[in-house]
C-alpha cells in the first residue's frame, strides 16, 4: 500500500476521473444531441486566463513564445535544401505575404484532394520548392516557422470557410467532435459545447477554440501545435490519439477553425 501522500497531480487526476464519471452519468441520463455554441456566446480561451497569463500573452517582450517566433524569422530568411532557397526568396517579407494565411488554414490542397494544415503546407514548400527534407511534426524548427507565419495573422478574424471542396471534411471533423471517444467515453462536444465555463476538478472547461495556435502551453512549458493539444485531449479521454498529420487530426483542425470563424487570431497565445 502506498503510505506516502499522493502527489497533487495524482490527486487531481483521480478527482478529474471522478468528475468525468459524474459527467458521463449526467450525459447518459438525458441530454439530446449536443448543440453548437451560439455565435455571439463564443469566447476565446484568452478570456478565461488569469491576470498574469493574460499579461504574458499581451507583451511580446515577456511572452516565451516570442523565442520561437524569432527563430522562425531566422529560418524564414535562411537558404536551405538542394534548391538553396529561403522562404523569403519566394515570399519576400512575411509581414506582407503571410498576412491572413493562418486565418484561412487548413486549406484545400488539390494535390492531396483534401485539406492540409499550415504545418503540412510548410513542409510541402520545403520538399517541393526548397528540395529540403520535411521538418518532423512538433520539431522546434517547424513550430518556429508555424509560429512566425501564424504571428503575421494576429488580430485578424478566422476566415469563413468558403471553399465548397472543404465541406465534406468539415463534416467529418464535426462528426468526430460529436463522437464519444475512449474509455471515458465522452465527446469533445459534451465538455466544450455543453459544459464550457464550468469546472472539472480544479480546471475551467474552455470552449476549446484554435485561434491562438501554436500556443505556449504552461503545462508543456513549451510552444506546441494544435495537433499536440488534440492528442492531449484524446489521451485525457483515454483514447488512442491519432498520429501527427493523420487526416482525422486535420479534419478536426478544420472543423475547429470553422467553429471559431470570426474569432481573432492570437498566435502565439499563452494557455494553461
Amino acid at each position, binding site marked *: 500500500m502506498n503510505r506516502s501522500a499522493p502527489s497533487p497531480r495524482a490527486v487531481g487526476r483521480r478527482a478529474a476521473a471522478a468528475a468525468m464519471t459524474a459527467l458521463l452519468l449526467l450525459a447518459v441520463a438525458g441530454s439530446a444531441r449536443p448543440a453548437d455554441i451560439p455565435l455571439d456566446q463564443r469566447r476565446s480561451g484568452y478570456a478565461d486566463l488569469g491576470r498574469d497569463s493574460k499579461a504574458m500573452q499581451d507583451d511580446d*517582450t*515577456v511572452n*516565451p513564445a*516570442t*523565442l520561437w517566433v*524569432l*527563430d522562425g524569422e531566422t529560418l524564414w530568411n535562411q537558404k536551405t535544401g538542394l534548391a538553396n532557397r529561403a522562404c523569403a526568396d519566394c515570399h519576400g517579407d512575411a509581414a506582407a505575404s503571410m498576412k491572413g494565411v493562418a486565418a484561412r488554414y487548413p486549406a484545400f490542397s488539390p494535390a492531396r484532394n483534401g485539406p492540409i494544415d499550415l504545418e503540412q503546407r510548410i513542409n510541402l514548400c520545403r520538399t517541393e520548392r526548397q528540395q529540403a527534407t520535411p521538418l518532423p511534426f512538433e520539431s522546434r524548427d517547424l513550430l518556429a516557422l508555424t509560429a512566425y507565419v501564424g504571428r503575421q495573422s494576429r488580430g485578424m478574424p478566422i476566415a469563413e470557410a468558403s471553399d465548397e471542396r472543404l465541406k465534406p471534411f468539415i463534416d467529418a471533423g464535426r462528426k468526430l467532435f460529436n463522437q464519444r471517444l475512449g474509455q471515458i467515453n465522452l465527446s469533445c462536444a459534451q465538455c466544450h459545447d455543453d459544459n464550457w465555463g464550468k469546472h472539472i476538478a480544479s480546471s475551467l472547461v474552455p470552449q476549446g477554440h484554435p485561434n491562438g495556435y501554436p500556443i505556449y502551453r504552461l503545462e508543456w*512549458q*513549451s510552444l506546441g501545435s494544435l495537433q499536440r493539444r488534440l492528442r492531449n485531449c484524446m489521451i485525457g479521454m483515454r483514447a488512442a490519439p491519432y498520429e501527427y498529420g493523420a487526416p482525422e487530426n486535420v479534419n478536426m483542425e478544420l472543423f475547429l477553425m470553422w467553429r471559431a470563424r470570426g474569432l481573432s487570431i492570437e498566435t502565439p497565445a499563452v494557455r494553461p
Partner: protein
Amino acid sequence: MARPLINVPAKVKRGQVFEIKTLISHIMETGFRYSTTGKRIPRDIATFFSCSYNGEEIFRADLYPAISANPFIAFFTTATESGKLEFKWTGDNGFSETATTTITVE
C-alpha cells in the same frame, strides 16, 4: 536555440531608473521529475545570471530548479552613460549563454 530576448528602452535620460527584461530558452529540468519508466530525469538548469553595464556588474542572480522553464528575469538599473549592457547565463552541463545590447543615454 533562440538567442536571448533582451528588452531595454530605446533611449533614457541620465539618472533615469529603467527596467531591463530578459528571456532565454532553457528547459530548466528540475531533477525531481521521473520518466514514465520510473527513472529520475537528471537536473539541467541555468544556475546563474549576471548583467554588466559598461563592464561593471549591476545585477546577479542565483537560480534554483523552482525557476520556470525559459527563465524570465526583469530588474532595474540607473542610467549613467551610453554604452553596452552584457548578459551572461551559466548552468549545468556547461551551459553558457551571453547577449549584449546597447543603451543610449542622453
